[in-house]
């Protein structure tokens, strides 16, 4: 299966033919966005006439890749964007979803592009954003709290599988254990020892069953120059579960971007957790936070092993996949051993 490619002509044809009543379509500035690890992502400008009005829009096209770091679900991600629209969690507007793979060698969905923002962590740690680092950090954890406190039961989230508060941990651990067992190419003793320990020492039940974004972190938020977050991206792993899962993922060392003592790369731990608690109305239970921090490394290991295996078997053609795995797998193991207290026995 080839990596999907979007062209200006191809997207103009799609816009004109996929819905009746559109005319005078023009598409320009098509470019692939570098770094999307789970989907092939394009940015473009489009203009069209419909019902007597002319629309000009910056659009993002998210296409299914042949294989990548994740085996994720496009409809699921699209529905999550729709579900968060008009909430206090900022997301780009999800516009259209297309199952017909013949347009660009793969199914896709289209959403609004939010201009004037930055997502790349390295750039967020540098001028001019470093001057507003405190605000970015507060926004990051306030919005994390809003996701955790979001009232999903009022409707629109029926696509997510329900779960009881005392089974959140088990379902997620089963899910990622299966991913690791399916994709590992060698013994992986450290992550498997961690999984065994986690099954024997489960966390307390979730305080509430919440929408869990699944990859909420610095790098998946659109930040404007004032430090305000204008959009939360990459919802393909969202599910119902324990909100501490999301919090522990956001705080894990992988996403501190060279500032090892700052959660998310922006806030001291006490301030980060306090901000989340005030925003969510929930409490950070230390035992739960420890368990879900361990889980974050298990899940990350599952992601890296998936990318490496897909590359090794020729199912994924992104050249960065083996490098990501080589670099990050030992880091996950090190994080696991630190959380399990193994470093105390190191020579």
């Amino acid at each position, binding site marked *: 299966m080839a990596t999907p490619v979007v062209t200006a002509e191809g997207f103009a044809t799609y816009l004109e033919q996929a819905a009746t009543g559109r005319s005078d379509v023009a598409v320009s500035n098509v470019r692939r966005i570098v770094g999307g690890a789970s989907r092939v992502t394009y940015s473009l400008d489009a203009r069209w006439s419909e019902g007597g009005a002319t629309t000009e829009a910056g659009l993002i096209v998210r296409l299914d890749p042949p294989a990548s770091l994740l085996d994720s679900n496009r409809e699921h991600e699209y529905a999550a964007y729709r579900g968060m629209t008009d909430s206090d969690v900022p997301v780009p507007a999800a516009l259209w979803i297309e199952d017909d793979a013949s347009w660009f060698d793969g199914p896709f969905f289209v959403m609004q592009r939010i201009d004037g923002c930055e997502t790349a962590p390295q750039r967020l740690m540098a001028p001019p954003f470093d001057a507003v680092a405190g605000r970015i950090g507060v926004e990051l954890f306030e919005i994390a709290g809003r996701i955790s406190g979001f009232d999903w039961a009022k409707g629109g989230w029926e696509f997510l599988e329900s779960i009881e508060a005392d089974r959140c941990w088990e379902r997620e651990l089963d899910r990622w254990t299966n991913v690791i067992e399916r994709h590992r190419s060698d013994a992986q003793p450290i992550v498997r020892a961690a999984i065994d320990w986690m099954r024997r020492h489960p966390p307390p039940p979730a305080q509430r069953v919440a929408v869990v974004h699944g990859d909420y972190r610095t790098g998946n938020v659109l930040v404007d120059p004032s430090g305000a977050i204008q959009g939360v991206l990459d919802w393909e792993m969202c599910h119902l579960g324990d909100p501490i899962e999301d919090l522990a993922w956001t705080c894990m060392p992988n996403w501190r971007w060279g500032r090892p003592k700052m959660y998310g790369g922006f806030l001291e731990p006490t301030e980060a957790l306090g901000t989340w608690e005030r925003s969510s109305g929930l409490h950070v239970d230390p035992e739960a936070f420890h368990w879900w921090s361990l889980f974050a490394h298990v899940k990350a290991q599952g992601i890296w092993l998936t990318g490496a295996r897909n590359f090794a078997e020729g199912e994924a053609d*992104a050249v960065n996949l*083996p490098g990501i795995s080589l670099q990050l797998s030992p880091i996950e193991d090190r994080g696991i051993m630190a959380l399990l207290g193994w470093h105390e026995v*190191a020579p």
Partner: protein
Amino acid sequence: MKLTRRPTPLEILEGVQRGLAIQVVPELASDQARAELGSAVGLLGYLARDFDGAAQSLLEEIAAMQQVATQVAAAFRAAGHSEEAADLEVTDPPADVRVSTLFARHDELQEALLAALLAADHAIEDRAASGDAGGLEDARAGIRAAFVRLNGRRFG
């Protein structure tokens, strides 16, 4: 044998990496193509750095794990776990020094040590509940330390 003394495999990999970085990357038009080739250049550098020492490194790690496995087997036997002890007593040397053969042996030893670690973990927790530590703490600490050292070598 098709390899030559000069350029060595290491020099070939480094040369290709250098050539791509200097001659090809600047000529590429799209950000995506530059990023992909940049990753490829980085991978070639990794292969170049590890090519010459890969077999030696695997042999050292196998020897270290073998030593830990022997000590752990004795501890298990003394604690009355003869079945687990037997699983750790794999002493045949690898059939050859191909990297694939060495990886297979490396993996076998990691599997055996993991099984022993889990058995020790479970036994220690079960016996702690009854107030009897069972004598496997040192074995468990030895396996953990071996895994910590192996992990440390990934950063060397």
